[in-house]
């Protein structure tokens, strides 16, 4: 099957620092790809580079056969990419409703938003409904995280880039989110997911790429990694049994 997104030898600099040292990454269409790695491995930087928030100094980012390496962020978004940043990027002055309205690019007013989809989201994250008109800044940490994800899925998109969605979420909600991603996948949405929570990753991922020090050091199928304890501990330092 074809790759929706391909990174070839991507180097990224932030100011004086050289962060990514040639990232090669394939994201197969319609699948969920897990991007794992230690703190500081460069996962977030990779996502930001794809989104055009940092620009690659070398290498290419190709989306659906089109080179988007140097494209401005809004254009990349328009070609069907949604992004959930690590810091969630909530507009805290705006209400939850207004946050969603902005995320629904197609909608001029709330009435234009596809209600069934909205109901679906409310089903996944009941808090969204409950605090619909609250200032988003007042939400709890987890609720902010839910809002961030909700914004990314309020309209159908080709590719979702999601940075650590599970952090701060209660297990129940994590279950809902896993369910949600399954449904999205079923609807042919491609997902690139950065995750620390391996249990979460294990349940969802089709393919997996592990980063270290600005490079992809391993990529393959999730099943394979999940099966191989030694590989896990080597790549992710997953040692203490406490975490299985």
């Amino acid at each position, binding site marked *: 099957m074809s790759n929706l997104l391909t990174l070839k030898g991507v180097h990224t600099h*932030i100011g004086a*620092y050289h962060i990514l040292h040639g990232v090669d990454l394939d994201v197969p269409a319609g699948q969920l790809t897990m991007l794992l*790695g*230690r*703190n*500081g*491995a460069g996962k*977030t930087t990779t996502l930001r580079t794809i989104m055009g928030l940092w620009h690659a100094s070398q290498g290419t980012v190709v989306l659906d056969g089109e080179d988007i390496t140097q494209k401005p962020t809004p254009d990349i978004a328009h070609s069907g990419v949604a992004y959930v940043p*690590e810091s969630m990027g909530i507009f805290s002055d705006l209400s939850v409703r207004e946050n969603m309205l902005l995320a629904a690019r197609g909608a001029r007013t709330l009435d234009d938003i596809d209600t069934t989809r909205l109901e679906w989201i409310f089903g996944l994250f*009941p*808090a969204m*409904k*409950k*605090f619909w008109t609250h200032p988003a800044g*007042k*939400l*709890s*940490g*987890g*609720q*902010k*995280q*839910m809002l961030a994800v909700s914004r990314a899925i309020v309209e159908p998109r080709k590719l979702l880039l999601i940075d*650590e969605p599970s*952090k*701060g*979420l*209660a*297990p*129940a*909600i994590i*279950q*809902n989110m896993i369910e949600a991603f399954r449904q999205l996948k079923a609807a042919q949405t491609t997902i690139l997911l950065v995750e*620390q*929570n*391996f249990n979460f990753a294990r349940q969802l991922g089709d393919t997996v790429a592990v980063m270290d020090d600005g490079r992809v050091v391993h990529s393959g199928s999730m099943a394979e990694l999940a099966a191989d304890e030694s590989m896990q501990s080597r790549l*992710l*330092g*997953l*040692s*203490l049994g*406490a*975490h299985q």
Partner: protein
Amino acid sequence: MLETRDLTVRFGGHVAVNAVSCAFEPGTLTAIVGPNGAGKTTYFNLISGQIRASAGSVRLNGVDVSSLGAPARAQAGLGRAFQLTNLFPNLTVRENVRLAVQARAGAGLNLWRIWSDRRDLVVRADEVLEAVALADKGDAFASSLPHGDQRKLEVGILMALEPQVFMFDEPTAGMSVDEVPVILNLIRQLKADKTKTILLVEHKMDVVRELSDRIIVLHNGELVADGDPATVIASPVVQQAYLGINPEEEVSA
């Protein structure tokens, strides 16, 4: 010891924390669990004085501290780390910690001493960085740290403050699996010297199971369960409302 009596706060119509009465003994680690939006962080905010209670009181060693503001309570020994990382972004990692050390030493209002003369503070700061495995990043700007390291720094600052009560709000969220142990060990050490009261908000049940001597459950702002880990986790409210055997539960509120 720390105690809250009928601690309550309303935001508009919404009751975020509802008459929570609970006492926390030194030397014990109490885990606070509950669905998102249950009121855990708010409970911390109320204890550490970031927000004022609508009703009820907070008592430290029998003294009512409800009237004090956040700074006073911090000085009184109520220390907390934040859920959403909250640092001094444009200062170096070392500076971040040093400020906490200095607060501990109460040297803040000294206008004439040259800062760098206080070797003791510097040394202490470096010890802490050592402890949270950030020693090599001491001169980096806090804002440039990757998320996980920022979480570590968050914890480090709390350590440097050496309070009597430690409040950790999801210290390991977004921390890579191999880093988690570092923090957990820190917390274990705190437990080891029997004088500290430790409150831990955490969604990772395995961590909770492993560390806590006691678990209390908040749900829609109310304290709905309290007891030793095994029984509490087994209790239906946790199984349903929290672990989400049946998520709908949350909507009903």
